[in-house]
């Protein structure tokens, strides 16, 4: 049973460029959430996708956008990269039938993005 997978594992980009990160949820899960974790900080919620729509969004600018595909996989896009976007980006999957109130989030190993 495959867990949450993310790609790529590492990425180096230059300021002003655009980046796309990918996530495949755990088998049986239909909801994907994205988090940004700066070094030494806790994960910060970016947004959540369910049924191919953004359901919830954290306090992130419009440069951060996403998409969910019919197979429940998801992409995170960041435009006009800033140095401050350097972070570990985590994807977490869950099942809408098993609310986050009662069920754990399952995380991928993340994508380490470095912006130079």
């Amino acid at each position: 049973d495959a867990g949450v997978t993310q790609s790529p594992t590492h990425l180096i980009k230059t300021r002003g460029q655009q980046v796309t990160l990918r996530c495949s949820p755990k088998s049986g899960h239909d909801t994907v959430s994205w988090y940004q974790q700066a070094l030494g900080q806790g994960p910060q919620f970016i947004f959540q996708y369910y049924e191919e729509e953004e359901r919830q969004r954290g306090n992130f600018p419009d440069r951060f956008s996403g998409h969910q595909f019919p197979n429940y996989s998801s992409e995170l896009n960041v435009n006009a990269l800033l140095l401050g976007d350097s972070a570990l980006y985590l994807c977490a999957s869950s099942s809408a039938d098993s609310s986050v109130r009662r069920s754990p989030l399952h995380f991928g190993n993340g994508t380490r993005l470095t912006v130079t």
Partner: protein
Amino acid sequence: QQPVQSPQAVILREGEDAVINCSSSKALYSVHWYRQKHGEAPVFLMILLKGGEQKGHDKISASFNEKKQQSSLYLTASQLSYSGTYFCGTVNTGNQFYFGTGTSLTVIP
């Protein structure tokens, strides 16, 4: 919205006990606890659903005081493998999930 954890960091010798606290300014429905080792994804430890509920997992247990909007994680007889950063995650009545500020735990021989 982000819950505040205390202490920020703690160093223990093997066999010692520790308590990590998580406090929210919002009414909570449930509290999660996760442990993250350096360079790895957070790993789920437990969820507490009801006010006053306590749960245990090996020598790690937790309590949730719904009225005070607080949760505590108890680590007893700590082992080297307990080292990592511990995060609480709170779910408010609007079903929004927020990670806490984190507590770095280091267990030394």
